[in-house]
């Protein structure tokens, strides 16, 4: 089965499972993107869905009952811990998003996206998708996170948008807590230097390679002390499940220790350089 067909069948299957389980689900990216923003066939490798945060467990349970297995849990993924990957014997993998990096409004943000949804046909099944403005927002924020500011997604969603469409997008970003990420994706981050997420979105959108800078920015952006500790652990401690998939077997304690020291050493070296630079800057003032 061609990959593009498998992806469409995954979307259609999830929609039916969501309906049967009373789950609110929005289909995002890939074949769900409006033709006005898509620019032809998108090169996806999986199906992406955004689920109402309070419905996550219900959806995962329904999927597990219909042949899906969890390949990566939320905590195995990015430091945002936003998506879990589930695989199926014949269908395309699915990324179940419980949030979208850069959209910080939680359940209230989902409420807003859900209220503005419309239906799109995927493989003959009526699938709820975000409004056109929300699709623009998600594409831009996704590009910003990948440091792909010159991507066709940003061009179509922002550069080629009318003033009215941009106003609608800015208002939506304010409502769903995505102002900083949108600014990062559209070259307006300078107006948000006082926001907690500013440094993080600067390092992401500029493809910063220093692990220490990324670590510091992520920790700074974490909203609570507990979240800061969790973020630090996520970035420094090697992920056992990902190592297991790469090695094809569980990692030995020696391999885990080696991975931990390798990550810590690299991060620590850069951290020392950063702290020395900061100290020099303070002395120079």
């Amino acid at each position, binding site marked *: *089965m061609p990959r593009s067909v498998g992806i469409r*069948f995954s979307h*259609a*299957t999830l929609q*039916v499972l969501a309906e049967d389980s009373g789950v609110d689900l929005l289909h995002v990216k890939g074949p769900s993107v409006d033709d006005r923003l898509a620019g032809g066939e998108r090169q996806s490798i999986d199906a992406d869905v955004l689920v109402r945060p309070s419905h996550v467990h219900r959806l995962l349970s329904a999927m597990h009952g*219909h042949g899906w297995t969890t390949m990566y849990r939320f905590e195995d993924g990015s430091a945002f811990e936003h998506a879990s990957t589930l695989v199926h014997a*014949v*269908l395309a993998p699915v990324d179940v998003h419980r949030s979208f990096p850069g959209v910080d409004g939680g359940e209230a943000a989902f409420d807003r996206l859900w209220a503005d949804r419309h239906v799109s046909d995927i493989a003959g099944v009526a699938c709820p998708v975000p409004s056109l403005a929300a699709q623009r927002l998600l594409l831009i924020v996704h590009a910003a996170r990948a440091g792909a500011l010159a991507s066709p997604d940003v061009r179509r969603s922002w550069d080629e948008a009318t003033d009215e469409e941009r106003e609608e997008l800015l208002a939506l970003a304010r409502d769903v807590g995505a102002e900083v990420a949108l600014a990062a994706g559209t070259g307006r981050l300078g107006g948000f230097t006082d926001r907690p997420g500013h440094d993080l979105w600067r390092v992401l959108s500029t493809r910063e390679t220093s692990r220490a800078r990324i670590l510091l920015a992520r920790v700074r952006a974490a909203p609570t002390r507990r979240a800061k500790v969790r973020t630090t652990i996520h970035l420094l401690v090697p992920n056992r499940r990902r190592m297991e998939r790469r090695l094809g077997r569980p990692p030995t304690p020696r391999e885990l220790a080696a991975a931990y020291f390798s990550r810590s050493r690299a991060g620590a070296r850069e951290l020392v350089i950063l702290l020395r630079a900061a100290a020099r800057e303070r002395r120079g003032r």
Partner: protein
Amino acid sequence: MTAYSVPERVAHVERDDDGLPQVFLMRLPDGPPVALEGTAALIWTFAAEGETDVAAAVARAMGLAREQIVEDVEAYLVRLVETGLLACTD
């Protein structure tokens, strides 16, 4: 003449692979996916589009006489209905 439609919970993707019509079908949510190619894909597509004389439509598309294929086409339509990949609407 019988009219057909796509059952509510059947996902379908139609493609054209270098001139060879293809239809991928899957009963939701558990499948399994099915691939139809060539004449089989044409039969399903005409039926799904509401064509009441599917054999005549397929014969026209293939440059054949209806009588040459009508039995095979109708037998195949019965199979598609039995497997839940097509529904009779009357």
